[in-house]
């Protein structure tokens, strides 16, 4: 631990120069620095987002323009374009599957938690680095291996996994059922195993760091909401990912070693299989025991980031700091006991359905509280629309739109009709996909100056926001209509049925909107990479924010603070405090230095604070005496 022995500014500085002679490999590749690991996750996440987005454009072409001749895609897709110039039906299912897997795990889990938990936890709690830099590095490289394997699976002859991102057996267990369940599925399982290991290594680190390495004065009640969110996310991941691992392991056994955990009474490909006694529903229980918490694993960090961005750019304290924490705690706990609402019509006991309907609708309450708190934070603020702020407001909008449709789906009676239709697709793409994605983008815009010491271009950010915000609504809002009309998901084409032989115009509209939205992301990409090298130089606290990361040098080196780690004296949301000169007071400013703006109860704390400061300076003097 680098935190322990730093004494005065000067010695710390010398220390620094001696210790770290990074070469290219240790600095950019096998780095143990949390900031570099965060950036590695971010860049990999962006890469995957492009792949995942591209896959969605491919299948949207099929859904919006089923008659279109896709011969021009042959150089890219080869044999997956049929002789008549259509997309192969099996490959369509593989596209849907890989789009889901990539977006949920590789972009929104790794890209969001991996980037911001790594980058922000030490900076915002005042730590030199993660508790274990080495484990942190392993976490990224496990993820990298996982990525490579998943990427390879896109190119094999039988195609990648094609049973939907949930990979329900028996479809995913039997190669006879769909070609993607052969080698593609094997690679999927191997990749996910590495991915889970990566998540766990990261999660243990985040939890340990938040609990143990907070700087002096940084009590849990003074943590920024980002840190609370990352902390609780890591707890959820740590408790739920192992269950997915178990589910995957049993699936491997069923696939390769002839066990019957999930398989029973199957006649396929002209033969009756010997497996009996297994239950496909068991897999669904295990999968959704991760699968539902996973929703919050991707959503909570985004909500944390938004809380921070909205407070900063409203120049107001986040409304109901404690209520926000309690809501997140509530969501964390409840997220473990709602999983079976994905299975109302799976054939499980309907009594279980009643229980899970009840629990599911409870989880709407903390979510509602969060929304109302965001709104009240905006109310009577002094709002500055940085790109990060725009994306945060967009997130709140998606969170409302997608969250409300969850009330339909959580009601088992209504879910009978809506389950596995486009209504579900619209719901989760808004509340989990787009909301989390907006949180990710908001985070990038907001902390880019800290990551690279330069500013992203704001006007390109505005264009990016408006195109994406309108685009996302144009893509996903119409899906509610076709969902209510009963269009099933994962359909290559709907023309085979009378009830769904309509809305070709709406599907075309959605596809066009999807393509435009995807294209708009290249504005962001350009902005990101251009600004990294040529952007305007950032000032040390460009958003005039209160949190600790803005007290580091503009581009922090190893150990984050050249001298001693600053002490924290107040909560992170002292914006526009009455009496204060500026409209923000950083966490490092002692209450005793701001008598003009202290609230009555804070005035009392000043006394104890003075004592602490006195003790501390005495200790410091004693230390110095010893060293010299």
């Amino acid at each position, binding site marked *: 631990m680098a935190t322990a022995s730093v004494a005065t500014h000067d010695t710390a500085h010398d220390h620094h120069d001696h210790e770290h002679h990074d070469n290219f490999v240790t600095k950019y590749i096998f780095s143990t620095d949390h900031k570099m690991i965060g950036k590695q996750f971010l860049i990999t996440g962006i890469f995957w987002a492009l792949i995942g987005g591209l896959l969605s454009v491919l299948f949207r072409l099929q859904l919006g323009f089923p008659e279109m001749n896709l011969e021009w895609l042959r150089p890219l897709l080869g044999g997956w374009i049929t002789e008549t110039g259509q997309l192969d039906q099996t490959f369509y299912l593989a596209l849907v599957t890989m789009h889901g897997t990539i977006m949920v795990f590789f972009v929104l889990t790794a890209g969001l938690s991996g980037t911001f938990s790594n980058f922000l936890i030490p900076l915002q709690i005042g730590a030199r680095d993660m508790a274990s830099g080495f484990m942190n590095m392993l976490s990224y490289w496990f993820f990298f291996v996982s990525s490579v394997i998943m990427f390879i699976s896109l190119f094999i002859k039988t195609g990648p996994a094609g049973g939907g991102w949930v990979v329900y057996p028996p479809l995913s267990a039997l190669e006879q059922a769909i070609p993607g369940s052969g080698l593609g599925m094997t690679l999927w399982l191997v990749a996910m195993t590495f991915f889970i290991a990566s998540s766990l290594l990261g999660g243990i680190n985040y939890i340990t760091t938040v609990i143990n390495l907070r700087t002096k004065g940084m009590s849990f009640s003074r943590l920024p909401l980002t840190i609370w969110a990352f902390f609780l996310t890591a707890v959820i991941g740590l408790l739920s990912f192992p269950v997915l691992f178990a589910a995957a392991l049993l699936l491997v056994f069923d696939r390769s070693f002839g066990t019957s955990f999930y398989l029973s009474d199957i006649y396929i490909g002209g033969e009756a299989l010997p497996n009996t006694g297994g239950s496909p529903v068991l897999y669904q229980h295990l999968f959704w025991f991760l699968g539902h918490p996973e929703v919050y694993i991707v959503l909570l960090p985004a909500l944390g980031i938004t809380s921070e961005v909205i407070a900063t750019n409203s120049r107001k304290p986040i*409304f109901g700091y404690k209520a926000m924490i309690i809501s997140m705690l509530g969501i964390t706990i409840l997220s473990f006991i709602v999983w079976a609402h994905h299975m109302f*019509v799976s054939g499980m006991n309907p009594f279980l*359905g009643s229980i899970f309907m*009840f629990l599911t609708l409870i989880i709407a*309450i903390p979510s509602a509280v969060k929304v109302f708190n965001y709104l009240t934070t905006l109310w009577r603020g002094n709002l500055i629309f940085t790109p990060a702020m725009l994306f945060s407001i967009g997130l*709140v909008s998606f969170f409302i739109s997608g969250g409300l449709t969850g009330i*339909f789906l959580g009601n088992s009676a209504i879910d009978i009709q809506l389950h596995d239709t486009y209504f579900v697709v619209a719901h989760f793409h808004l509340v989990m996909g787009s909301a989390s994605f907006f949180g990710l983008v908001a985070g990038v815009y907001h902390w880019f100056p800290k990551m690279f010491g330069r500013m992203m271009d704001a006007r390109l950010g505005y264009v990016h926001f408006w195109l994406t915000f309108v685009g996302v609504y144009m893509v996903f809002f119409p899906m509610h209509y076709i969902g*209510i009309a009963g269009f099933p998901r994962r359909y290559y084409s709907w023309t085979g049925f009378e009830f769904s032989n309509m809305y070709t115009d709406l599907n075309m509209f959605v596809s066009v909107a999807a393509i435009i939205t995807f294209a708009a992301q290249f504005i962001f990409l350009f902005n990101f990479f251009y600004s990294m090298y040529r952007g305007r130089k950032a000032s040390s606290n460009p958003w005039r924010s209160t949190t600790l990361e803005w007290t580091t040098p503009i581009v922090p080196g190893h150990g984050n603070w050249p001298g001693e780690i600053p002490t924290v004296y107040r909560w992170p949301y002292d914006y526009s405090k009455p009496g204060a000169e500026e409209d923000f007071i950083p966490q490092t400013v002692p209450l005793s230095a701001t008598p003009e703006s202290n609230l009555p109860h804070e005035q009392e704390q000043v006394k104890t604070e003075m004592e602490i400061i006195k003790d501390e300076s005495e200790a410091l003097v004693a230390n110095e005496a010893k060293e010299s």
Partner: protein
Amino acid sequence: MYGFLIAVGVVLLLSIVWMVYRIQTLVSVVKGSDKKIASGSNKVNAFLFLVFLVAVGGLMFWYSIKEFDNYQLPIASEHGVVTDRLFWITMAVTGVIFIITHILLFIFPYKYQYREDRKASFYPENNKLEVIWTTVPALVLTVLVITGWMAWSDITAPAPENAHVVELMGYQFAWDIRYPGQDKVLGDNDYRLTSAINPMGIDFTDQKSVDDFPSPKVVIPKGEPVLFKIRARDVLHSVFAPHMRLKMDAVPGMPTRFWFVPNKTTAEMRAELKNPDFNFEIACTEICGRGHNAMRRVIEVVEPAEYQKWLTEQKTFLQMNPALAEGIEVEVKEVAEIQ
């Protein structure tokens, strides 16, 4: 040649955009507006939120009303009336919340956009407000949960004794349909008996199988309870009858069921919709492979009398394929020989 021209055009366009962008950046640096806390763009963004609220909100209302008859599927079962009522009640409740929250969410940015002369109000908490907006949603949700739970309990309660049984078996990529025949009881089945001539794996040594008969479509009587017994032969499937508001997974190794009361005949629905070609349909809603989108069957709802007549007209499996009967005889012979 065209490709080349287009490429040149695109390059030109991009470079013009690039130039404009650079010039604007330089101008803003010269003006010093990049140093300001909030530039003129702040006003534009604030205003755009209002535009978004009005334009997209208007679009939503317009389309929702215009298309109502298109996306609102006609209902043809008794419980469907209940679940649809719940759906629209939930829509009303959430719709109000949706509209109020979005009006606030987009008006606040306009109203409270940055002004140098104003300071945001320091308003960190208000426990009374928090309690209100915890309890109000809790109460509303309680009502929704209880009504939903009551409907769900009714729908999933055991089927009445007199329910007409129809068996649906999903396989890649179709549904096979079996009726229990005169004894009203389905014969045993065993997946190991499945073969080209016996795709449902029916055990014809079971007496109850003798009068079982297949059908290319589901025929059911109006106004009487119908019980779908659902199973799958290879992978997961899901029976979805959108007009009946009916959905239940078909699981290999675990038979499932769903009972309901159809309340409109196909003929009535055709008259109502003025569409003589209308049919009730069954689709598959659990991904099952290449032909997932092709598992169509027709449901024909008829008057009870007509249904009884139809029942008597059907030929059993054994009548249709004597080879199946031969199989039994052989087995019976074998058993006899052993004895």
